């Protein structure tokens, strides 16, 4: 009963807030709706029993990404944006030209096909998950998987993050006057 309640409330929160992001005119309000949507996704993870992933979702998105987005919006003064649209492609002029729209369409088609492929599987019954009693908690299990089976992906992603850090430091560094 509790899991159903958690699932339904998280799902409603996710979808309604995602719609709010699209509908609301004020970009700050969109950011706050995005926060609600991401919280809903965390609730969905919690429904699935993935407590570590749920908390990581809150940690990364609420604590980091949404605050950074709010900062970016506020520092660039994006709230008084006036659309000077004339035609369909110019509806949102800051969003690009026909090439970017073409790329967007292509990505959309690929995404749709992937989703259809995934949803086809829903009609079949899924194999029941074997519960692994070897580990006392999901945290331990994730830890073991990260440094044993998936150690290469783990290391590569840490190199990627290091690259991002160094890049940010280089961009933000004051340049020499010459």
């Amino acid at each position, binding site marked *: 009963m509790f899991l159903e309640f958690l699932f339904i409330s998280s799902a409603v929160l996710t979808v309604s807030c995602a719609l709010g992001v699209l509908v609301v005119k004020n970009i700050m309000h969109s950011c*706050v709706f995005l926060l609600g949507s991401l919280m809903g996704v965390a609730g969905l993870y919690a429904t699935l029993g993935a407590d570590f992933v749920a908390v990581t979702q*809150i940690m990364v998105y*609420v*604590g980091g990404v949404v605050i950074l987005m709010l900062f970016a919006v506020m520092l660039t003064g994006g709230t008084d944006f006036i659309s000077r649209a004339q035609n369909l492609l110019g509806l949102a002029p800051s969003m690009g030209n026909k090439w970017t729209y073409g790329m967007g369409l292509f990505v959309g088609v690929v995404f749709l096909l992937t989703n259809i492929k995934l949803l086809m599987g829903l009609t079949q019954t899924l194999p029941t998950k074997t519960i692994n009693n070897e580990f006392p*908690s999901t945290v331990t299990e994730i830890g073991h998987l990260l440094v044993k089976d998936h150690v290469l992906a783990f290391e590569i992603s840490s190199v990627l993050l290091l690259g991002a850090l160094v890049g940010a430091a280089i961009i933000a560094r004051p340049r020499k006057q010459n």
Partner: protein
Amino acid sequence: MNQTVVSYLSKYEFYDYLLALFGNNQGVLAFTIYFLLALIIIGMCATIGGLGTYAERKISADLQARLGPNRVGPYGLLQMLADGVKMMTKEDIMPFTADKALFYLAPLLCLVGVFATLAVLPFAGGFIMADLNVGIFYLVAISSFVGLGVFLGGYASNSKWSMLGGMRGASQIISYEIPVTISILAIVLLAGGMGFGTIVGQQGGLPHQWFLFHNPFAFIAFFVYGVGALAETNRAPFDLPEAESELVSGYHTEYTGMRFGFFALAEYIEVFVVCGVAASLFLGGYNVPGITIDILPVQAAQFVIFMTKTLILYYVVIWIRWTLPRLRVDQLMSVCWKYLTPIAIFNLIGCAIWMVVFNGKSIAELVLGSH
């Protein structure tokens, strides 16, 4: 599995009686227990927050050779109630140009973020509302709502003081989250788990069994955590978001009445929470020396021990506020990024090496050769 207060109570006989009373409906009974306990804990912590304002004024008066509040009730103890009544009866002013929805939302985000952390705070053995496997991680994650509330409060007021305070608050909170989290991670390494039950259970009641004295790196980590926690709760010497000498009152300049009260209450309860976390991570938590049985008198003693440690730390936080001058913004950032973060990373690596080299033994175990 995650332990909760319900799964703890279900070991006892009276749980079956209660279950029969609720028509064998497990969900409703669990909900009722959580609801009642949440009411008790939130009521208790709100009182502690209120008494915090009293303690703040009384201790500051002590440090400055003044009297402090002394008119309402014995020793001015009822000052808190008078303040509460005053705040609730004040006019709720909404600035004309404010962003209404966010202006209403911001104090609530602060308060929700702080109250949500109380769910995992270990008051006594068995009486943790939810002893999650990811307990400390959950606490760090959910308390980032406070930073969001501070930031949105500053933005929504549409005033320059609030804006500057809010931006300082958000940048300060997300910067200091890094050394704090890395220091906590060092303790997670020592305990071998992120749940509060595990972390407290790995320590003992006597000082040589605490993680504070486990190894030199953990000892340094305690102070890194302390400084970072002061900054995360916007306490002096890091109270730049509400620096009254330059920003009027910072992010809550435009807030009046109970909405301001929510911000103030959230701050005082958050100080209590970070002190409680410090007490349970480094100072042995609720452990009673020598006794590990879970019976009611022992649990009462555990509760008293936990509260004593936490409130002593609370006193130190107030003491620091009235002793040290405020930092500048650039000093604040250089303290975080140039000193605390490298020290915290050094501690983490040091703890990891210690665990490997000495096979997880603490200094006391190495010296005394026993537990």
